[in-house]
């Protein structure tokens, strides 16, 4: 039997490592929910966000806050530009899902090739060192990076919840995701909702790639692999359920972390693809327990609806 402290350590590390998966997944799931778009272009946005931060902090020596702010502005600007000059055009043409898939994937590849030309293929990190101070809490090693990762992720998720729950624009995003045409009849701008969801996703992507890039090396090819994890978590969480997708991302990260007890680390990625494949075959609409339950009308309501309408 494995030592409980080791199990707790794997659990904690798994939760901390899931932070950027959660942020990427929420970004992907939100775009899918609001825009009905499998946006693989987010891999390209990850690359743009990372290399902007990398360049500004390492080559231009900007202060950290300014470099991060510039990366957020840059990523958001590209998101909005892609939405206005590409996605909206394809949407207007009623392009098939396949065309959207090709465009978003090719856009990410275009960005990856461009970044390869500019920065090469050597793995880079945002700071020269990825080491982080560690303290022992109850026998478990907890690093500053772990704490900041969990903190940033929780703050972003709470922020998103508050945006959706308590602001008009958040409610409009939900309305557009439910029924775009009906929302527009009520005067809600679908375009504004799309752009807002894109900007929120860009923020999540910047936070996620910041966490990833302060922990591990990034090459222009890395984001494509990261987006695939987000796709898997989104599918398992159930389409249209952003926070369930986030939980699924944590579950996948923990599955990968605990799998080191049974299999070699080189097979961990295969485990992920196996989960994707079988999840799609067995639960093509997400895990059944997480699906939205249909509210059945009460017998009285049905009877009232069926009764002949009297009066004038």
């Amino acid at each position, binding site marked *: 039997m494995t030592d409980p402290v080791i199990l707790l350590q794997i659990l904690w590390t798994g939760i901390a490592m899931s932070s950027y998966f959660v942020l990427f997944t929420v970004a992907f799931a939100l775009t899918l929910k609001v825009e009905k778009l499998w946006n693989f272009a987010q891999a390209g946005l990850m690359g743009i966000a990372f290399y902007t931060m990398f360049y500004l902090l390492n080559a231009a020596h900007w202060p950290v806050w300014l470099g991060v702010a510039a990366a957020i502005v840059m990523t958001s600007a590209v998101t909005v530009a892609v939405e206005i000059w590409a996605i909206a055009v394809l949407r207007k043409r009623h392009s098939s899902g396949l065309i959207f898939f090709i465009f978003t994937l090719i856009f990410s590849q275009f960005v990856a090739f461009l970044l390869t030309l500019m920065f090469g293929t050597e793995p880079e990190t945002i700071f020269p060192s990825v080491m982080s101070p560690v303290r022992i809490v109850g026998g478990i090693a907890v690093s500053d990076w772990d704490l900041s990762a969990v903190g940033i992720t929780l703050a972003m998720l709470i922020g998103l919840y508050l945006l959706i729950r308590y602001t008009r624009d958040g409610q409009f995003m939900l309305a557009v995701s439910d029924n775009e045409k009906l929302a527009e009849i009520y005067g809600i701008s679908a375009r504004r909702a799309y752009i807002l969801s894109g900007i929120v996703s860009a923020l999540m992507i910047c936070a996620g790639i910041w966490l990833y890039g302060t922990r591990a090396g990034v090459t222009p090819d890395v984001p494509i692999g990261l987006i695939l994890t987000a796709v898997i978590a989104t599918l398992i969480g159930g389409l249209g359920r952003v926070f369930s997708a986030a939980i699924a991302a944590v579950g996948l990260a923990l599955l990968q972390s605990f799998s080191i007890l049974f299999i070699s680390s080189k097979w961990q990625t*295969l485990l992920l693809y196996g989960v994707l494949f079988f999840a799609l075959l067995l639960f093509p609409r997400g895990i059944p327990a997480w699906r939205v339950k249909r509210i059945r009308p009460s017998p009285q309501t049905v009877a009232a609806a069926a009764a002949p309408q009297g009066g004038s």
Partner: protein
Amino acid sequence: MDYLASAGVLIALYVMLAASYNLIIGYGGLNTIAHPIFFAIGAYTASLLGINTGWPAVICILAGIGVAVVASVALAITTLRISGDYLLIASLGFQLGLLQAVNNVEFTGGPSGLSNIPLTLAGPYRSWLYLLICTLLAAVVVWLVWRSMVGPFGRAVRAMRDDELACAALGRGLFAMKVVIFAFGCGVAGLAGGLYAYYFQYISPEQFNVAQSATILTMVVLGGIGTIWGPVVGAFVLVALPQAITFLQLPSSLVGPLQGLIFTSLVIVFLFLRPYGLVGKRMAGAAH
């Protein structure tokens, strides 16, 4: 001149891949992007048999086709009950999972791949002979796709793509049709894989990744999805134009990314300027 012949071989192989993929996605309406994995299965099977048994190349390539067909039937039986975006993602998972396995096992050479594939058709005219063989086979594949799609079977396949329910109501066995076109298309990918391995004598998992899926898919869509000549034109344009950069004598570290940039830029430009494909015709009311 050998360089031109090599580019020609590559174009012919991509014509086979794009034409067979067009059968699956363009005519059959099966949104799968796992075509490169059957290309890989053909290449790895032929190479491993060639290296370990010393059998003739033809036998090894035929075995590659056979294994690709068996694998495609296995995938079809498990996944073709789902459709649309879900099939797209499931096929992506299948491809990446299998590639991950190829990357991690020793007998496939891992990430380094296989480089000691036996030489066939040695001599000064090797490349031109290969070009002749590949061009003939590509022509046969295009003819087979055309022949199968102009008859009753082709009409049934197109009817299935346009309206599955109506087609089923007419008594057609949809599942069997899907499996047949999927297996045929993947068998052709296996053939292209075997030829690729024997010509270039080096294969690695990196050559069959998601970028390859995007490449073949793009050739089909930009050439003209659901047309006979579209994939041929798409393969020619998207292989030949990026190759032009090699004549500029740039450092090798720049050539790859520049070719990639040219390729992706062409795709983006064509996607917006010719959404119905280079040889496809705009249809009133059709979505592109």
